[in-house]
């Protein structure tokens, strides 16, 4: 076992912080689940009595999306804070030098730090996996969607942790590293949407003359783990039983990304009958009433690699680059001291 990881696990589990974070995290997600359940069932029961099968499926899908959405938010919120002290904290506590003069290789130090952060992340995800699985028990969501969603959460956490470890090695002070890591996370999650929206406005103005509404290049969204997750859970579940409630978060994301989503609703209704084909263009998923439906671009019948694969590849590249930079920063002898 990596000595740095072993030490970190011992240190982290000894303090009260870990159990506190876990408790808060679980409480929040359980609360979200309860709210969604209460809102959906309460609403329907008041009007129609017992839920119809499709309504149950819709409830399951709604719970799934909301719990997943908040899992994402919590991971994006927690990981930079948990990881930003990885290297800079050792510098600040003057413990990095004794570590650098051991026989540990710089990459072992960096990987140990990353794994310590990821281990805690896995604990969080494992603890909340049952919450996500409730939606599977209710219906409307396939097991593959649940697994894909958990995979996307873990991948997002690992990628964010890697980028944060990089920040922690590049910036001398933990405070700076924390701010930078959160800034990057914010750019990934909100900045990409903003860029996409701005590009969308520009695009619609440019193409108005031809009377064709086109969407901006989805490359703008490649850095966004939420879109990645949306694409993954949309494309991996081929049997939708119900539609998500109209206010489900991924639906909202897609409406934001694709203002013309209503045009696809009828197409979605048609697709709903049979298995939904994976979008050949690999673009970000659209959500029609039939759940996540990959829009068919008539002018782009076989667009190549799926969006989530391209997104994951780009994010992984960034993560690896970040770890390489961190390793360089930890390596000694260096040009400047400590």
């Amino acid at each position, binding site marked *: 076992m990596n000595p740095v990881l072993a030490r970190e696990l011992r240190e982290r589990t000894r303090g009260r912080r870990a159990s506190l974070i876990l408790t808060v995290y679980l409480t929040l997600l359980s609360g979200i689940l309860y709210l969604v359940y209460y809102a959906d069932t309460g609403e329907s029961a008041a009007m129609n009595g017992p839920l119809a099968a499709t309504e149950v499926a819709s409830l399951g899908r709604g719970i799934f999306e909301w719990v997943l959405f908040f899992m994402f938010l919590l991971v994006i919120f927690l990981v930079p804070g948990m990881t930003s002290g990885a290297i800079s904290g050792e510098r600040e506590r003057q*413990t990095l030098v004794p570590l650098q003069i051991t026989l540990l290789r710089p990459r072992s130090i960096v990987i140990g730090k990353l794994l310590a952060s990821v281990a805690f992340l896995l604990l969080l995800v494992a603890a909340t996996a049952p919450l996500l699985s409730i939606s599977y028990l209710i219906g409307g969501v396939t097991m593959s969607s649940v697994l894909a969603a958990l995979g996307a959460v873990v991948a997002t956490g690992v990628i964010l942790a890697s980028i944060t470890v990089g920040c922690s090695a590049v910036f001398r002070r933990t405070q700076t590293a924390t701010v930078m890591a959160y800034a990057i996370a914010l750019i990934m999650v909100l900045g990409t949407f903003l860029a996409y929206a701005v590009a969308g406005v520009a695009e619609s103005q440019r193409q108005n003359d031809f009377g064709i509404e086109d969407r901006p290049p989805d490359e703008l969204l490649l850095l966004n783990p939420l879109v990645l997750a949306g694409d993954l859970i949309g494309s991996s579940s081929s049997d939708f039983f119900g539609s998500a409630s109209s206010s489900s978060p991924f639906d909202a994301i897609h409406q934001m990304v694709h203002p013309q989503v209503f045009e696809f609703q009828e197409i979605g209704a048609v697709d709903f009958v049979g298995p939904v084909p994976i979008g050949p263009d690999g673009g970000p998923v659209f959500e029609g009433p039939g759940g996540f439906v990959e829009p068919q671009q008539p002018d782009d019948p076989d667009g190549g690699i799926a969006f989530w694969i391209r997104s994951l590849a780009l994010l992984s590249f960034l993560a690896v680059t970040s770890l390489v930079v961190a390793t360089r920063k930890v390596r000694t002898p260096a040009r400047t001291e400590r």
Partner: protein
Amino acid sequence: MSAPEEQSGSVATAPEPSEPASAIVVRGLTKRYGDLYAVQDLSLRVPKGSIYGLVGPNGAGKTTTFSVLATLLLPTAGTVEVAGFDPVQSPRDVRARMGFMPDILGVYDNLRVDEYLRFFASAHGIARRSIDPLIGDLLDLVDLSTKREAMVDSLSRGMKQRLSLARALVHDPEVLILDEPASGLDPRARVELRALLQELRSLGKTIVVSSHILSELEEICTEIAILEAGRLLVEGPPAEILRSLAGERTVAVHLMDGTVETYTVASEEEQVELLARLVAERRPILEFRSTGRSLEDVFMKVTKGIVQ
């Protein structure tokens, strides 16, 4: 009667070429940060089995020199050899043979003394089964056996210093480099540290220590180098330095009427002659005392005025 003392320049001994009996050889080491020279053309030779003291005021370049020796810092120019290996070319070979204790003690929260040592032992690739007896031995050596299960955070400064020393010894290094090991220690802890260093030397280790207080090192070091402003001023055994630099000494003569006369003599013989002459002159001598003999005075003389 008396002439104010003038120090006649620095006496830098020329470094010997690398000999097999050297634990550390430094040749022409220079470290520059922009326009600032932290270390300038420094050459040293640390004999195997010695306790070597690096003395100088703050900013003299001691820590920078140690950082290069400890495989942490790249030199601007010059070559260094620690236990036969170049810290720049083969840092891992040096790390396997060198223990380093930085001037600031980094301590992990939430870790016990034995866990702290276990961590560094495993970071040095020491086999799991030999770690436990090793920790016992190390804690015995630095007299912390009773603190084995205490939290590192709760230790006193002297104890942390000793734990840090145990940490530096975890892989049984040939060469031990200690940056300001006595700083912040109470007198008792200093005496204990001194005894500990002697014990380590008897185990065959070469020890390099730094201090800005010469008297801390005077008694334990077999060799001393005095640094200032990144340059070597003197190097050699304390007694030798004393002889070469303190040949000229001041004698204060207290007379019965309360006046004090000071004389400067060039050697012990001259001092004897001076006393004989004064006695022959029937001067009312109450006290005849030579000053300027301790290494501290040499150090004060040698380092005067170059660094503020």
